[in-house]
C-alpha cells in the first residue's frame, strides 16, 4: 500500500503565496503574447478558409440533411405539428460533430431513438457540416483538445508539476462526479440503461473523449445538457479521465458479462452453475457400459 501524497489544503496555500501570484501573472502574460504571435498573422487566411468550409458544408447539408432539417436548418414540422427533423439553428458545431461523428446522423430510419452506427461522412466533411450549422446561429463550438485531454490534468495537488499524481486526483474526482451525474442513466460502468418508452441511455465506453465531451455539452437526443455552467470544463475532463481509466484498467475479477449487474450474474449462476452441476449429476448417476461377459467366463 502506498500513501497518497495530497491534501486539500495545499492547493490553496500555494495560490495564496505572493511569489506564486507573480509567477502566474508572468506566465499568463507570456502565454498570451506567445499565442497571439503564433495565431494572429494566420487569421486573415483562416477567415477565408472558414467561409470556404461553410460553403462546402452547406452543399453537403442540402444533399444529406435538408430533407428532414429544412434547407436552412430551420427544422421541418409534420402536418400534425410535431417535429419531423428539429431546427438546427442554435445547436452549435459540437452537436453536429457529435451526431455525425458517431454515425447517429444521418438517420437510417425514423425511430424512438437514433442508435450509434458506422460513420458516413469523412473527417473533413464533418468539419464542413459543423462549420455550416455553427454559422446558422449560436450554440457550443467543438471543444479544443486540451479540454478533454486527460493526460493534461493540470497541477491539481499544487506541487508545481503536472504528473501522475495529478492525474490520479483527476480520476478520483471524475469517478465521484460520474457516479453523481451519469450512472443513473448510463450504469455504473457506462454500459447503458433503459429509459421510458423504448428510449435508452447508450453504452458510453470506448467512445472518443471528444464525443463524450460534446455529448455532455449538447445533450444529444433526450439527454440532459451539462453545460459549462452546470459541470465546469475541468470536471468534464475529470469524468473523461475516469472513463478512460475504466477502459484501461484490467478486468480484475474475470469476465464481466456485459457489466449489467445482477441480471447477467443470475443468468450465469443458473445456466453456467446449475446447468453444469446438473450435467455432472447426470454423469454421476448414469449407468456405465456393461459387458455381456460373465466374470468367471472372463477369468477362464
Amino acid at each position, binding site marked *: 500500500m502506498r500513501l497518497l501524497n495530497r491534501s486539500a489544503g495545499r492547493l490553496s496555500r500555494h495560490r495564496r503565496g505572493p511569489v506564486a501570484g507573480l509567477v502566474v501573472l508572468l506566465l499568463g502574460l507570456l502565454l498570451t503574447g506567445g499565442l497571439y504571435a503564433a495565431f494572429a498573422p494566420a487569421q486573415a487566411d483562416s477567415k477565408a478558409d472558414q467561409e470556404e468550409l461553410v460553403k462546402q458544408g452547406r452543399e453537403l447539408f442540402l444533399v444529406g440533411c435538408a430533407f428532414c432539417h429544412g434547407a436552412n436548418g430551420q427544422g421541418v414540422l409534420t402536418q400534425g405539428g410535431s417535429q419531423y427533423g428539429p431546427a438546427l439553428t442554435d445547436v452549435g458545431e459540437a452537436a453536429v460533430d457529435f451526431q455525425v461523428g458517431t454515425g447517429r446522423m444521418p438517420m437510417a430510419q425514423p425511430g424512438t431513438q437514433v442508435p450509434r452506427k458506422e460513420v458516413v461522412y469523412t473527417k473533413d466533411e464533418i468539419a464542413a457540416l459543423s462549420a455550416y450549422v455553427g454559422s446558422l446561429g449560436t450554440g457550443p463550438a467543438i471543444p479544443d483538445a486540451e479540454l478533454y485531454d486527460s493526460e493534461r490534468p493540470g497541477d491539481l495537488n499544487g506541487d508545481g508539476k503536472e504528473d501522475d499524481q495529478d492525474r490520479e486526483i483527476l480520476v478520483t474526482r471524475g469517478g465521484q462526479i460520474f457516479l453523481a451525474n451519469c*450512472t443513473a442513466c448510463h450504469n455504473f460502468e457506462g454500459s447503458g440503461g433503459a429509459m421510458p418508452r423504448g428510449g435508452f441511455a447508450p453504452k458510453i465506453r470506448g467512445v472518443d473523449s471528444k464525443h463524450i465531451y460534446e455529448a455532455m455539452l449538447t445533450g444529444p437526443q433526450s439527454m440532459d445538457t451539462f453545460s459549462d455552467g452546470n459541470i465546469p470544463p475541468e470536471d468534464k475532463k475529470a469524468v473523461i479521465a475516469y472513463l478512460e481509466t475504466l477502459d484501461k484498467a484490467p478486468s480484475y475479477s474475470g469476465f464481466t458479462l456485459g457489466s449489467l449487474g445482477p441480471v447477467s450474474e443470475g443468468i450465469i449462476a443458473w445456466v453456467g452453475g446449475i446447468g453444469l452441476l446438473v450435467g455432472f*449429476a447426470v454423469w*454421476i448417476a448414469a449407468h456405465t457400459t456393461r459387458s455381456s461377459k460373465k466374470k468367471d467366463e472372463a477369468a477362464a
Partner: protein
Amino acid sequence: MTVGDMSQVATTNGTTPAPTKGAQRAGAIANWADERLGLGTAMKKNLRKVFPDHWSFMLGEIALWSFVVLLLTGVFLTLWFDPSMTEVHYNGSYDPARGREMSSAFASTMEISFDVRGGLLMRQMHHWAAMIFIASMMIHMMRVYFTGAFRKPRELNWVIGCLLLLLGTIEGFTGYSLPDDLLSGTGVRAADGFMKASPVVGSYMSFFLFGGEFPGDAIIPRFYVMHILLIPGILLGLVAAHMLLLVYHKHTQWPGPGRTEENVVGYPMLPVYMAKAGGFFFIVFGVITLLGGLFSINAVWKYGPYDPSKVTAGSQPDWYMGWPDGLLRIIPAWETHIFGITLSWNVMIPILVMPPLMLMILIALPFIESWITGDKREHHLLQRPRNAPTRTAIMVALMTFYGLSWAAGGNDIIAIKLHLSINQITYFMRGAVFIGPVIAFIITRRWCISLQRHDEEKLLHGYESGVLVRSPEGGYAEKHLPLPEAKAYTLTARDRDPEPETVEEIEASGLAGRQVRVRKLRAKLQALFYADNVQKPTAEELHDAQHHAEHELHELESQIAAGPNRHGPTEH
C-alpha cells in the same frame, strides 16, 4: 456396565485376526473409539445403508455442498471484513477510489479484493456459491414436488425444506448488503421503504432496525450478526434435521423391476454412495471455484461506496429477490390516503403480502393434496410428473407466475437488450402474471394426459419399431413391437386413481350440516383433481391387446413373406 462386560468387548475385538500392521492400528483405534462411543451399533446399520441412484436425487446435494463452500469461504472473508459503518478515507491499492470517504465495511471489502491474495477469488466464490445454493434448493424442491416425494411420511421434511429456502433467501439478502456498495445500499434503501410501508408500525420498525433514521450506522453490524451467526445457526440446525429425516425415512426410489414400496434398491453408503457424494462435493466446490476465478460478480469498486444521493441504472437485487422486485415494478400506483393514514398497496402487496403468501402456499401444498385425495398411505415410490397431471400443472402454474414476475424484475435489461419499451413490457406483465399461470396450468395438464395416453398406447400396442411395411394395397404401416417386460412393468407400476365419492354416497352416510358440505366439496375437488386422467390398463385389457397385436404381427409377417408385388394370403 460391569467390569465383566467390558472385558468381553475387548476380548471379542482382540481376537479378530489382523492381516497387516496398518489394519491392526486401525482396529485399535476403532476399538478405542467404540469402547467410549458405542459407534459399532450405530454404524453397523448405516455403513451399508442403501441409496438409490438417479441424477435428480443429487440436486439437494448441490445445495448441501454449496452450503459447505459458503461456510468455508465465509470464514475466510470474516478474517478481514470489518462490519462497521465508521467513515474512513480509503487508502488501499485501487487508485480511482483513493482518498474517498467510505464506510469501514466497504473499505475492508476493497482490501479483501485488492490487497489480500486470493481475496477477490474468495469473495466471488462466496457470492456465486450463494446464488447456486438458493438455485439448487429451488430445483431440488421442484424435483421433490413433481415426483410426489413430499407425500406421507415426508411432509415435515418438505416444510423444513421450505423454511430452508426462506432462510437461504434472507441469508442471501443480508450478505448482499454487507459490502455497503452503491448497489447493495440501494437494496437496503428499498428495504427501508418496504418497512416504512408496513401498516401502523412502519416508521418505528425502520427506526429500530436502522438504529435511527436511514441509513444510520447500525444496519451493517446488525446484518453481519444475522448473516454469520443467527441465520447460519438456524440453517445448520434445519439442514441437520432435514438429513436425519432423510436417513430415517430412507430415500424414495423410482418404480421398476424389484423396486417396491417395501424396499429400497441401490448402492450401499460405503463405498459407492460415499464416493459419489464425496466426489460430487469436490465437483461442486470446483465448479464454484472456477466461476469465482473466471466470472466477475458484484465488482464493488465500480459501484463505489454507498451514498444515498447516488444510484446506477440497472439497480437489481440478486436473482432470488428478483420476483418480488418484479411485482414491485408492475404493480399500479395504488396508494390510499384515508382518515389521515397512508396505505401503500403499491409496496404492501408485492413485498409484504405476496412472498409470505407464496411461502404459505408452498408449505401447504402436501397437506392440501392429501386432503383432496384422501390418501393417507405412506409412499416411497416416486410418481412421474405425467401421472399426476393436476399436481404437475399446479406447480407449473406457480412457476409461470414466478418466472413472469422474475422477468418483470429485469424489465429494464430486457428493454435494452431486446430493444423494447419498459412501459410496454410492464403493461404486458401486468396481464401476463394473471393469464400466464392459467394458460400454463391448462396446457400442462393436457400435456400430461397426452403423455399418459402415449404410455398406454405403448403398453397396449407396443413401441414403434421404425420398420415400415407396405401392404399389398400400397398402404404403409409401421410395425409395432411389444415392450420388454421390465419396461412394461415399470410403466404399469403406478397407482390407479380412486373413484371420488358420489353425492348419493355422501348423503347416504348419515352425516349432516357442515360435514356433508365439506365431504361434497372434497368429492368435487377430487373429481377435478383426477379428471380425464388415463388409468393403467387392467390385466384383461393388456392380455386382449397383446393377443390382437400378435395377430397383426403375424399377418404383417406373412404379407412380407408373400413379397411386395404379390398378393398375400390374407383377404382384405
